[in-house]
């Protein structure tokens, strides 16, 4: 049984550590905030200029001057601070954020990431994604393991324009967890009832299997 979006977000939350400053991308990564363990202090950064992001507002708390990088209304916390976009990306580029969790269209076995453009089709822009993957200490990707048409997204080499080169440290997909480091890709966890053979069949990237994983 493959992991759901909630399962993937829950698994990603295990990468959080006490005292971490974290940037969560739009979509499934946003759900990770729901799984921060009790008693663990994690501060969420929003690249449009906020540290210490609170939950979504109640209907009577909505403030047009208070949004996250996904343009969603949010709230502040007693510990919050606001700053300019230049200061925000100074924080990001300068390596002050511990962890960024993002979505992906494609990941390559050397850690290359593509998540911003489909030539001739999508004209949206990279927003802050290139800055985040270049600057943040650890980059974790959450994605469906395969595209809707069944094709592999975890590849030997990305075919789409890149967001960053060699930037991905971990991939969490619906079939399991992979680390990417100097030893290449390693499958470290499997979703329930998913077999290594199934993962191999659905993955183009080469990967080794962590010790003890059946």
């Amino acid at each position: 049984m493959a992991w759901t979006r909630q399962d993937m977000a829950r698994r990603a939350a295990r990468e959080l550590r006490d005292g971490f400053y974290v940037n969560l991308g739009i979509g499934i990564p946003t759900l990770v905030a729901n799984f921060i363990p009790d008693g663990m202090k994690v501060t969420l950064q929003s690249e449009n200029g906020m540290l210490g992001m609170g939950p979504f507002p109640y209907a009577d708390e909505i403030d047009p001057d208070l949004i996250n990088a996904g343009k969603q209304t949010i709230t502040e916390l007693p510990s919050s601070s606001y700053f300019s976009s230049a200061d925000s990306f100074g924080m990001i580029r300068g390596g002050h954020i511990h962890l960024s969790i993002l979505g992906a269209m494609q990941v390559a076995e050397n850690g290359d990431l593509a998540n911003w453009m489909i030539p001739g089709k999508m004209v949206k822009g990279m927003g802050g994604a290139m800055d985040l993957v270049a600057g943040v200490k650890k980059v974790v990707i959450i994605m469906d393991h395969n595209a809707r048409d069944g094709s592999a997204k975890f590849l030997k080499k990305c075919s789409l324009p890149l967001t960053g080169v060699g930037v991905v440290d971990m991939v969490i997909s619906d079939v399991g967890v992979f680390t990417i480091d100097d030893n290449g890709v390693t499958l470290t966890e499997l979703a329930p009832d998913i077999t290594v053979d199934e993962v191999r069949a659905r993955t183009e990237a080469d990967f080794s299997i962590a010790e003890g994983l059946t």
Partner: protein
Amino acid sequence: MSKTYTDAAAALEGILFDGMTIMAGGFGLCGIPENLIAALRDSATRDITAISNNAGVDDFGLGLLLQSRQIKKMISSYVGENKEFERQFLAKELELEFNPQGTLAERIRAGGAGIPGFYTKTGVGTLIAEGKEHKDFSGETYIMETGLVADVALVKAWKGDREGNLVYRKTARNFNPMMATAGKITVAEVEELVEVGALDPDHIHTPGIFVQRIIQSKDLEKRIEQRTIREKGE
């Protein structure tokens, strides 16, 4: 020499010309200079190069200037919310230069601070790096990005005084402070035009030296793009 003008049209008088470069503050529809954008649309200034993180939505923000075909080129990081933008771009009626958001913010900050170029690792190995100078520092590769300035910068603040001192509110700050420094002429609109001395000198985000003209905003809509709430009890 007063910096205060009666309204947006008056504040833009004599400083607009066809082919000019404009910066407009805001992130999405948050913290955008609504009055000034509307006055720029009414001015019918053409062939504008617009530097702004986003392009508004179809009927609001910079989207208004796209509808009226006043924009020749956009320099932005993300324009996903604007259908008219996509149409004009795919029809090659509009030039587009994508910058990573942090690179865009830093280029504007650099432009205002007299720094013509700087190095960043953002975008190394991507389309963004093509044609740019590469240089290694401590064994890592970086690309050079250049400073950006504008003929006129349009910014939106929460409070401001007649000296041009500005204070922003919450995430409506975003690109406004850097753009205020990077305009040859900077025009600010504020929700509340206060007396000189009403702003604490330690809390001023944009010192008045950067602002040449200032107006009190009127009839702000302050639209919300993604109204996301939780229910009581959650």
